[in-house]
């Protein structure tokens, strides 16, 4: 009897297992061409993507049925099929990893930002090199952008071959500048800072002269986040280090001999840390600065307890507008980054890519892909035959009396950004283009020509445009992380320990729990515990990708 029971359990388990197996075997890559009604060749391209909260659909539409898929089918003869979606990057990568290790077929085209996963996918031999396809099918203007930013291909370059098409970032989109409480400056009779020294005077006044007038000494000078490193995307402290040298913590940049060196272990960082410790002691920084991440750091600024925030232009929308809303009479203005004692300025520069598009090695329609790519890029080149005033009427604009109207209130059902439906999960970008446009619109005061210029720039308001202009004019001070490849062998083994040691040492120095000279010990230990090996590996990688174009 027992045997029978066991057998039936085993049988049941096997059936369930088989069922589970079956669902996996759904054809992922179909590559099929079917005839559409009009007799035109219809090419199916399968994909997968994240579907985050900011992607909204009109009623009855979804990721496989929306203006973009309909447009692609009608105009380009491409039927996009999204096999699955994930609500966030973590789940998205997990699903791809699972598919990879269980040997499932990959979709035709998909975007990956995780350097390690890109590398795993390439080394698995399941994705296709794209050099030939770019040569053959990419339009001249796409080639021109690709050639202009060769380093954007590095994350997916292995053995001199390019395996992916970059999804560009805004270039300098998340580079920071200073947002300062102008009302506090005015109240205390101060001028905006030109140098770090000016900044110190301002912070001192903000801390000691009761700028919010509540009779309590409860204000701080500068809002910083340090839990995830001192050079980051919001409440960024990189400018302090940039004022003393050419390096920012956490970034690999060119050393004197042209090879890549790690920013955090350069001597100039010590000067920045010394300043931060001094500022902490004087009460310019949040007492909790060591445990604050980007989201928690900004609380002091939003609450009107901090006078200065180092943040990108988009902070105009959040969190700066919250600070203005919460504190009646608050005026927050963007200012350029101050310079150090030798006139140096430097800031953490955002990377050029937010991800790479990889292609299944069996994908046969690269021509169609590039046709689509050029078509969606034509929108920001402003010469599209499809998107003259905006992407899709009724979504990001409406026509009234023969003129485009971008005001979301005039669009029935409210404005929806159909750019999110593109493969790029947003309106495609070219590095630096957005802030170049913003600068042009801000300085010339010309009218926006299409929905893109209106919604992405003009509608964001004057402070945003001013901030974008300032960031754009300080582009020469960008210190970009030039290592954008997969983590190296030693990084995987020791990176965690090294990062932990770095964060711990920096925090202890800022808090005065360790003397400043602890930094030198840290550098020695860093080099000994794998840092030297990592530097070697990073430079080997750099040479290998640079050899290619």
């Amino acid at each position, binding site marked *: 009897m027992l045997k029978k029971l066991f057998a039936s359990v085993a049988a049941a388990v096997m059936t369930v297992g088989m069922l589970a197996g079956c669902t996996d075997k759904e054809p992922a890559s179909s590559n099929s061409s079917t005839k559409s009604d009009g007799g035109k060749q219809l090419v199916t391209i399968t994909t997968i993507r994240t579907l985050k909260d900011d992607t909204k659909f009109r009623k009855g539409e979804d990721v496989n049925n929306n203006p973009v898929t309909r447009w692609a089918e009608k105009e380009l003869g491409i039927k996009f099929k999204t096999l699955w979606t994930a609500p966030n990057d973590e789940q998205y990568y997990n699903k791809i990893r699972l598919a990879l290790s269980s040997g499932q077929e990959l979709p035709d085209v998909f975007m990956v930002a995780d350097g390690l996963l890109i590398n795993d996918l390439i080394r698995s031999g399941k994705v296709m090199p794209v050099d030939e396809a770019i040569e053959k099918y990419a339009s001249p203007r796409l080639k021109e952008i690709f050639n202009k930013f060769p380093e954007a291909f590095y994350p997916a370059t292995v053995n001199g071959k390019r395996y992916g098409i970059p999804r560009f970032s805004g270039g300098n989109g998340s580079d920071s500048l200073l947002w300062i409480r102008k009302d506090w400056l005015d109240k205390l009779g101060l001028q905006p800072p030109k140098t770090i020294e000016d900044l110190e005077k301002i912070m001192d006044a903000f801390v000691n002269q009761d700028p919010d007038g509540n009779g309590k000494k409860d204000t701080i000078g500068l809002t910083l986040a340090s839990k995830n490193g001192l050079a980051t995307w919001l409440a960024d402290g990189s400018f302090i280090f940039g004022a003393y040298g050419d390096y920012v913590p956490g970034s690999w940049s060119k050393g004197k001999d042209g090879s890549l060196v790690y920013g955090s272990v350069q001597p100039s960082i010590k000067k920045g840390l010394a300043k931060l410790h001094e500022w902490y002691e004087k009460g310019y920084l949040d007492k909790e600065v*060591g445990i604050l991440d980007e989201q928690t750091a900004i609380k002091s600024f939003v609450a009107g307890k901090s006078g200065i925030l180092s943040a990108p232009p988009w902070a105009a929308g959040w969190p700066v507008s919250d600070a203005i809303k919460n504190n009646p009479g608050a005026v927050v203005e963007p200012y350029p980054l101050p310079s150090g004692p030798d006139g140096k300025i430097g800031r953490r520069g955002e990377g050029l890519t937010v991800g790479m598009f990889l292609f299944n090695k069996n994908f046969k329609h690269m021509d169609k892909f590039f046709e689509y790519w050029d078509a969606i890029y034509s929108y920001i080149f402003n010469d599209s035959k499809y998107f003259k005033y905006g992407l899709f009427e009724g979504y990001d604009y409406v026509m009234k009396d023969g003129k485009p109207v971008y005001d979301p209130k005039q669009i029935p059902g409210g404005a929806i950004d159909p750019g999110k439906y593109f493969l790029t999960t947003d309106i495609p970008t070219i590095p630096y283009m957005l802030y170049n446009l913003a600068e042009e619109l801000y300085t010339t005061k010309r009218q926006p020509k299409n929905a893109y210029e209106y919604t992405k720039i003009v509608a964001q308001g004057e402070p945003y445009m001013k901030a974008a202009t300032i960031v754009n004019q300080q582009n020469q001070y960008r210190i970009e992380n030039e290592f954008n490849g997969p983590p190296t062998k030693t990084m995987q083994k020791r990176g965690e*320990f090294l990062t932990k040691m770095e964060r711990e040492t920096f925090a202890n120095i800022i808090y005065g729990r360790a003397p400043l000279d602890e930094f030198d010990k840290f550098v020695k230990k860093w080099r000994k515990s794998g840092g030297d090996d990592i530097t070697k590996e990073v430079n080997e990688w750099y040479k290998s990708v640079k050899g290619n174009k």
Partner: protein
Amino acid sequence: MQTQTHLESQTVINKKKKLKKNGWNLRNTWQLHAMLLPAVIIVFIFQYIPLFGLVMAFQDYEPWLGFLHSPWVGLDHFKTMFEYEDARQVIWNTLIISSLKIVFNIVVPLAFALLLNEVYIMKFKRTVQTIVYLPHFLSWVILGGILIDMLSPEGGIVNRVLVSLFNIKPIFFLGDNDWFRTVVVITDVWKECGFNTIVFLAAITSINPTLYEAAIVDGANRWQQTVYVTLPSMLPIIIVVGTLSLGNILNAGFDQILNLYNPLVYKTGDIIDTYVYRVGLLNGDFSYGTAVGLFKSIISFILVVAGYRLAYKYANYKVF
């Protein structure tokens, strides 16, 4: 078969009867087993099949090669673990934090249950019981945010009270290596003590009242009743709770630490789970992360077995 003697077949029948008594007759109980089947299958699929992934700990795992083709490295990852001081540090931290948690998660609920048992107003007792149990249902993500605010040295409510009462300098609870473990243990006990309190209260109510009556006849007061009747009667359940929690000795509370720790307290606050999370998931060193996790499981397993044996030997109590 036909040559079997009457006696022999008789014993077979007797055996069958015995089986019936023991509830092994599937003819009558197969429905119950069928109902159990889904659970068994789910446990098998989600608890046992993934165990094969443990081979990663002995391989240099590459996702596209899978478990079958990744190169074997033997015990290399385990050696690495003891080579580096950071791994030793987290093991040490884990042991300290979890031992403190285990002790206080028994002592505090026990004391609380005894006190609550003395309360005669039923409404009050029930209300307190529920309130104490409530934090158990909150996640550490939420509590983490609340605690960071409450314990803030700049206007956090705890520091405000301390400063006004004792006139001291505000304490940076979450950023101070001397305080971090204390905070972790206290907040964990606060969150979880309600559960054990209920277990202990239930144990108290199941104590035979005649024991108390006899004690009263002997002239025992409330305190003596507690020491000589209540506590000895509760010993088995205390041992059960203690034994079960031994298995968690290397689980110092991943959710909690992850939401509360920061670079300032890595020295005292970083535990095995957060370490595995950073190494394995954030750094992509799957094999090493698995090795550390496996090491943790083996230690926990040994401790559970040891605790079980000890409980049997000294308290004559069997959990299973």
